[in-house]
């Protein structure tokens, strides 16, 4: 699974309150949530983001609340992948569960700037910064997780498995 997009760069401890403020949690429609995504930390984000774009951040991305609205809003805003030095654990699960790929990569986080273009091959964990002409290595995403991401998330993946008579692993 290959992704390509322009980078939006953030620092450490980007929390779920700034990804999607709680004043919007009286709705759960991803498209509506996306309109307010990142607005408390980066008001221009939603006007600037294009489908396929990639977020690159420092440590502990997605810390704070368990709101799945956070990865849903980012995905609906067009973000195709998030690369960070580390992720908060609830966000980590939530992102994959809704089919938003995430990669931990120290080097990419350190050597990528805003507006760089990245090409990401998830199955190989390969991140190519085409603007700077450098390649970074992250842990590859295992094939079952790629299937889950391609299915759009855990629920659709589980449904497909149940339909195929595979049962729940």
């Amino acid at each position, binding site marked *: 699974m290959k992704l390509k997009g322009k980078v939006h760069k953030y620092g450490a401890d980007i929390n779920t309150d700034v990804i999607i403020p*709680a004043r919007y949690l009286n709705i759960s429609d991803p498209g509506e949530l996306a309109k307010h995504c990142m607005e408390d930390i980066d008001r221009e984000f939603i006007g600037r983001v294009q489908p396929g774009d990639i977020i690159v951040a420092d440590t502990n991305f997605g810390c704070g609340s368990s709101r799945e609205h956070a990865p849903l809003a980012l995905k609906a805003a067009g973000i195709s992948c998030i690369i960070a030095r580390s992720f908060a654990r609830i966000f980590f699960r939530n992102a994959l569960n809704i089919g938003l790929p995430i990669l931990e990569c120290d080097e990419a986080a350190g050597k990528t700037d805003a507006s760089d273009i990245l090409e990401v091959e998830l199955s190989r964990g390969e991140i190519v910064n085409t603007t700077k002409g450098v390649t970074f290595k992250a842990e590859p995403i295992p094939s079952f997780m790629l299937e889950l991401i391609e299915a759009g998330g855990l629920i659709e993946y589980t449904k497909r498995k149940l339909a195929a008579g595979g049962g729940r692993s």
Partner: protein
Amino acid sequence: MTLVEKILAAHSNRETVSPGELINVRVDLILANDITAPLAIKEFRRLGIDRVFDPEKVVMVPDHFVPNKDIPSAEQAKMMREFALEQGLVYFEVGEMGIEHVILPEKGLVLPGDVVIGADSHTCTYGALGAFATGMGSTDIASAMATGDIWMKVPPTIRFIYQGKPGKWVSGKDLILYTIGDIGLDGALYSAMEFTGEAVDALSMDSRFTMANMAVEAGAKAGIFRVDERTLDYVKSRAQRPYTVYEPDDDAQYARTIEYDVSTIEPQVAFPHQPSNTRPISKAGEIKIDQAVIGSCTNGRIEDLIIAAEVLKGRKVNRRVRCIIIPGSQAVYLEALHRGLIQTFIEAGAVVSTPTCGPCLGGYMGILAAGERCVSTTNRNFVGRMGSTESEVYLASPAMAAASAILGRLASPEEVAG
């Protein structure tokens, strides 16, 4: 094995587990609230399954924006209510509700040795009871509602030993703020925090709930205490089913052990905009405040209100401060009423609200305007958490919040009540 490993092994039918292992865990209780349940219900429906695996093990609590703050919140609460009634889940309507993490222990729904998953990050509160409890998102909850189990990675355990005798105004809130300030917002990322030592043994259950509650603020998967006489006292009148007390092995392997001498710890305050940005109150400087909030899943229990009343009794809230006190549950509210605390609060010039998460996450019942500052007993002070992105939240204990409400600035309770 550590305490956490013992509980996880027992719930995955294994002799042993070790950190990093992926295991499938049987859950004793699943929780969602009016913000996270609607998404979980949508995902559950998409699975095409009619019934939850066991309605007695699924709890839904309307607390974040309830009593409904606006029409969209009312729609979300309605969706949850209808699902809960249709499925026969454990559900608390407003008259018997409260903040989820206050009422679940109070009603004996969480017991020692349990594995609890909740679609709320502060699910880790139940570690105070010697349970393994962790927050997850709505999709994980939907999946677990269908099957009764969930995959997990066994976390390493970091042991925190608190020695010595704390000062008069140093509470569980001060100890956990100090700890988060020491290790940082991701200081316990993916790990379990085990709280132990003589100072912890001496803590009340309410203070233990406060400490376990904020484990997630250091990135932890869970915070946990060993079960002792105090825990058993708390659960014996509440438990309506059997439970198991687990103990860590003497040769348990900890990822790290961190020791603190609590006699040197002052009352703490976390400055904007991170719970780890802590200072002792003596180093806070002159910070004028506009609002004080006393309540939440962190500090909305009876001990918290008793301490706040001790500081506020016979004194007056500064006339430029809005002091908002929110009991965590109807039971806490009623006990506060019987003890005369509500009268103390109102006579001091505070406002008392029905239980709700309300202002903690910028929902309602105390939203901040640009330029305003609030001292709050809640758990997060991120940008915009309680309102305007140009407002500020200072996290502190109920005693400090009450003292600050009186003086109109960040203040040590000692300044007011000696």
